[in-house]
């Protein structure tokens, strides 16, 4: 895996990390979803978060997206605290995300979904949009071309004008990645990108992830059940169990960590390729 080497190379120790999560605690009523979670993600790194169901993986993403507001701790992106910001602000700051259960705008076509990824890059507001001619039109064409390029890369061109709601699941997954790419993110959050995929699809997706990480240099956080995938492509891994961080380190260390093995053996399903989420 070349991506692994590449990622290690791009994050020299000593430079400040892109993302710094420190001592984040999140509670819902009496339930503690995350307890003192700390980690950092370096520029260009492919970081993975693993853990059994209910470990709090998606909760971390929701904190990074400012959907949830942790009661304690800080989340700094380039030194700016994300806690208390609006979710839309995180997009402007360079955080993009794909969702476990897909969150596409299903009445809109593929291109419009990709264009929404470029929402925070574009500037046309109500007034400029109303007038259309000139600025708004030029911006629209410019960004549409960019989205077409992304669609082409992801093999979405045949479906360009089809409302995404009627497209097959695998295509929708790719559209979601495309939308995240269209956002030109600095940090990409991938929530179980291969869930429900067969072996071939999983391999395709893995290749895509490595390519985005490697060629575009986008830092990533990958939440995944598929341990093989994680072990294959991630640089470093954080293991969570019921909201509590149990291990953090390079892939090799985590693989052999007894606590991680225990947490995973504790649940019925054995992690492996193609495991359904």
């Amino acid at each position, binding site marked *: 895996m070349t991506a692994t080497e590449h990622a290690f190379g791009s994050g020299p120790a000593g430079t400040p990390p892109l993302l710094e999560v420190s001592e984040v605690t999140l509670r819902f009523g009496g339930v503690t979803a995350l307890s003192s979670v700390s980690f950092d993600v370096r520029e260009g790194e492919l970081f993975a978060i693993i853990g059994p169901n209910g470990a709090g993986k998606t909760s971390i993403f*929701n904190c990074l997206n400012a*959907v949830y507001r942790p009661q304690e701790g800080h989340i700094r992106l380039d030194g700016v605290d994300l806690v208390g910001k609006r979710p839309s602000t995180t997009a402007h700051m360079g955080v993009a995300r794909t*969702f476990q259960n897909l*969150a596409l705008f299903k009445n809109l076509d593929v291109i419009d979904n990709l264009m929404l990824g470029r929402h925070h890059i574009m500037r046309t507001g109500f007034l400029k949009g109303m007038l259309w001619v000139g600025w708004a039109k030029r911006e629209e064409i410019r960004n549409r071309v960019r989205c077409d390029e992304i669609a082409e890369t992801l093999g979405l061109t045949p479906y360009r004008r089809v409302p995404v709601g009627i497209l097959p699941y695998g295509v929708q997954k790719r559209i979601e990645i495309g939308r995240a790419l269209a956002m030109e993110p600095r940090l990409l959050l991938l929530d179980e990108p291969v869930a429900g995929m067969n072996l071939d699809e999983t391999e395709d997706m893995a290749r895509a992830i490595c390519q985005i990480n490697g060629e575009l240099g986008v830092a990533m956080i990958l939440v995944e059940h598929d341990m093989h995938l994680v072990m294959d492509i991630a640089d470093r891994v954080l293991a969570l169990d019921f909201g509590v961080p149990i291990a953090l380190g390079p892939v090799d260390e985590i693989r052999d960590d007894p606590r991680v093995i225990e947490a995973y053996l504790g649940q019925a399903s054995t992690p492996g390729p193609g495991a359904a989420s």
Partner: protein
Amino acid sequence: MVLAGVGVVLLAILVFLAFDGPQKFFTLFAAGIALGAVYALVCLGFVVIYRATGIVNFAQVGMVVFGAFVTYNAVYTWGWNFWLSMLFSAAVLAVIGIGFERFALRRMTGKPIFSIILLTIGLYLLLQSLIGAIWTNAKDTIPNPWIGKTVSLGSVNILQVDVVTMVLGAAVLASFFALFRYTKVGLGMRATAIDQEAALAQGISVPGIVALSWAIAGAVAVIAGTMLGSGATPKVGLGLGISAVALQALPAMVIGGLDSPIGAVIGGLVIGVAYEMAVGYQTQYIPSLGTSGFADVLPYLLMVLVLLIRPSGLFGTRDVQRV
């Protein structure tokens, strides 16, 4: 906390007004409770449907008016006994309710919420127009056993028809309580209200529960409509004034919490009393608010106040936001 503060302030205002002129105060208070009982009955119908489907059912307004006219038809045209007529009307409206659910609302599952609400508005208008086509020459009141009769409570006179309304309101609330608490169907209804999918997974027949809810809503609508048509406060009599009153009950439902029967009753009483107090004292104490009309918007202002403090109403279940 804030809510308690608002409550204390409102209560203090009531106490002040009570000492200001007891006779007037208690007369208005009694009228407010009577009005509140009508609102409560209308709201209970709204609540049943909201619990089952998660929408505010404007068709309820139409069912209230339509129910009144069906009762009228049985009492006046066919000369039936009042209670028998009401029972008959309840059966008719229960069937209409089930019909609405079966042939209209059920097909809307998964559609945007405003489409569903609009559908219920369409059904409301349909019932209202049908009234205009069917009963072209109706009298202004449903003949009833309590016309012109009052009971005295100290120095306050209350219409007998209002007393009956209050008793019926209390009875409906009590039967709701008993139904939800002690019957298997009620348990199913509670489960459905909390989570339809989970209820389905537990083997509860959700479509059956929803249909039953519509039947109950239809029957409750008949009680509200019949009492309004029989001259219960606000004495609009038999006519389209009933739908205006039924619409006025919407803020009461929000104040109580869209899914809470007890909330519906308390919301109704709060709105009823607030309305009468506003009419009775506003021109005297705050004449700058105009000669009338403030009382009509006060329920909505109270509603916004409650929503600001508790977005799910006084007794409603909190809505969990999902990504």
